[in-house]
């Protein structure tokens, strides 16, 4: 079982500026963290950082060089007790790419942590930083477990370890050409990732197949739909047999109903191709709705999520998981407005990275409460709440437009994970308008009281398992 710390880039920068101001001294802090537990391990999600003031809250100690003051420990542990957070002390050693606790550190942990664990009713622990490394230890139920390192979530997905990880073997021959860009380490990293794709339709299917070809180690696709004949023009490698086309195109309503009921689920069509593309990878296709309680947990321990559906429900759910569990998301789509006269409006191909510290889909106005409400009702209620523009009406969809948006999204993912964007490049929302050949960055104001991306009292940010997700019962 692994233990991993997750924090945003700005949280990491704030902490390192405090620990390494250039004076060569030790400094201290406390992190209050949400918890997320799954079969893949425990994640500690940094919600609040308390920087200890030198000489007042981080003071000379008889048992160690310096220590957090009792008042500071009491104040921060009260916060963790009241909010249900894991309490983690932080201090630093010298700069470098390796770090470990000293014997004095361990003696201090042994004295302090049993009573803190008892008080906060949560695991407690400690971190020690070098400027390029972090080591940690988490104690729960009286047992100590070493942390595996930290993931820094932002425009780049960075990793910090206690010591430099061993060099991976050369990339397999299959990936020779792309490894020239990604490096053996980048290729190895892709193999370690669990990526979830919500929606296996026109755009999602292409995202899945590109991820499989890239060599992503664990790929999960979630979609409740079965293949229809009208999907054959857009889902790569889908066949007429998959769609039961001879029944679907029959004059008999009964035959068409049989096709609709028994055609192959989209996630199974994608699975066939994903396994061919990456026989060493794990693929799971979940023929289910994303808000089903039975599948929602697949998102919470993911390393990356693509949201490739056109429903507000999926967008809202992905946005919640992104901030509550600190999992980066890219939402993508293709909006092609054609009116009843056949007139084509402005086509929008959005790619919206939600990098946890920026890109909140709610702040960006990318979630329509009107449509979300309508989608959230049971059929009986939906009929009487319906607006004039019926969301069930089929909209245009074209493979080349889906490929365009999918390719940009997967490239953003690849560059975020492998650190390939040019330094300082903001990874914000983009909109392509292909009719005008315009690619635009879109900006928006963050809501300081946002219930998802802010740290206001009612926000879900970094709460992990402490707040139930808005799922439908299985």
């Amino acid at each position, binding site marked *: 079982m692994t233990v991993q710390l997750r924090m945003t880039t700005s949280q990491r920068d704030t902490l390192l500026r405090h620990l390494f101001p250039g004076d060569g001294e030790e400094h201290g802090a406390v992190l209050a963290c949400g918890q997320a537990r799954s079969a893949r391990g425990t994640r500690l999600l940094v919600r609040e950082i308390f920087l200890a003031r030198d000489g007042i809250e981080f003071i000379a100690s008889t048992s160690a060089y310096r220590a957090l003051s009792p008042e500071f420990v009491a104040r921060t542990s009260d916060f963790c007790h009241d909010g249900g957070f894991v309490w983690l002390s932080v201090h630093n050693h010298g700069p470098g790419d390796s770090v470990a606790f000293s014997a004095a550190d361990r003696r201090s942990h042994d004295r302090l942590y049993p009573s803190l664990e008892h008080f906060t009713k949560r695991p407690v622990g400690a971190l020690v930083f070098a400027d390029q490394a972090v080591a940690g230890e988490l104690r729960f139920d009286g047992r100590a477990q070493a942390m595996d390192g930290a993931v820094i979530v932002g425009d780049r997905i960075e990793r910090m370890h206690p010591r430099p990880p061993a060099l991976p073997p050369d990339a397999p021959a299959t990936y020779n050409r792309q490894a020239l860009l990604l490096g053996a380490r980048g290729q190895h990293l892709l193999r370690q990732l669990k990526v979830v794709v919500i929606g296996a339709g026109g755009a999602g299917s292409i995202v899945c197949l590109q991820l499989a070809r890239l060599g992503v180690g664990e790929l999960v696709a979630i979609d409740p739909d079965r293949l229809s004949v009208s999907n054959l023009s857009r889902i790569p490698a889908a066949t007429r047999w998959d769609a039961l086309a001879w029944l679907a195109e029959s004059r008999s309503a009964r035959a068409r109903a049989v096709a609709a009921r028994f055609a192959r689920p989209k996630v199974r069509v994608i699975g066939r191709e994903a396994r061919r593309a990456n026989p060493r990878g794990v693929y799971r296709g979940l023929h289910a709705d994303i808000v089903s309680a039975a599948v929602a947990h697949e998102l919470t321990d993911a390393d990356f999520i693509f949201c490739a559906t056109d429903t507000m429900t999926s967008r*809202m759910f992905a946005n919640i998981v992104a901030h509550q569990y600190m999992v980066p998301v890219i939402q993508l789509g293709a909006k092609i407005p054609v009116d009843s006269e056949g007139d084509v409006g402005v086509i929008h191909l959005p790619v919206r990275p939600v990098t946890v510290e920026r890109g909140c889909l709610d702040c960006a106005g990318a979630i329509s*409460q*009107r449509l979300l*409400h309508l989608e*959230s*009702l049971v059929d009986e*209620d939906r009929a*009487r709440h319906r607006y004039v523009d019926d969301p069930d009406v089929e909209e245009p969809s074209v493979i080349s437009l889906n490929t365009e948006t999918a390719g940009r999204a997967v490239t953003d993912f690849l560059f975020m994970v492998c650190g390939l964007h040019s330094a300082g490049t903001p990874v914000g929302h983009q909109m392509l308008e292909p009719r005008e050949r315009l690619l635009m960055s879109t900006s928006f104001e963050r809501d300081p*009281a946002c219930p998802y991306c802010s740290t206001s009292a009612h926000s879900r940010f970094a709460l992990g398992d402490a707040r139930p997700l808005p799922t439908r*019962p299985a």
Partner: protein
Amino acid sequence: MTSPDGFSEGVSRGLAELRSKYGTVIAVATGDGGARVTVEAVPLPASIRQEQSWVGFVLPYNYDDVQVYGHFVPVDLTYADGTALAGSGLQAGQTWEGRPAIKISRSSLRWRSGVDSAALKLQKVIEWLGARR
């Protein structure tokens, strides 16, 4: 996660707030964690002839990450001068849990989970209704 009554955690919280503010609230499970809610005695503003009324609406399974929209009131509500409720945002010919009703359409452009609530929205909708006269 649903309660023994079949309501999601958010819906249960919303019902508790409505009951503490308005008293009797009938909630019928929609089967997916949501509820059809009827608040039996909502005080009405002076511009409405009746002093109080029932008001019905749905709390979806994912309340309070989603707004409350579509409030239903009795067809026989009238303004103080005796005229029937009508006009933009009001839709006659509806039913609510078998009762003839008028639907009030007041959508929230921005809905903040944890700040906005079913009880607050109900209050605003009734204030809006009263301010039309």
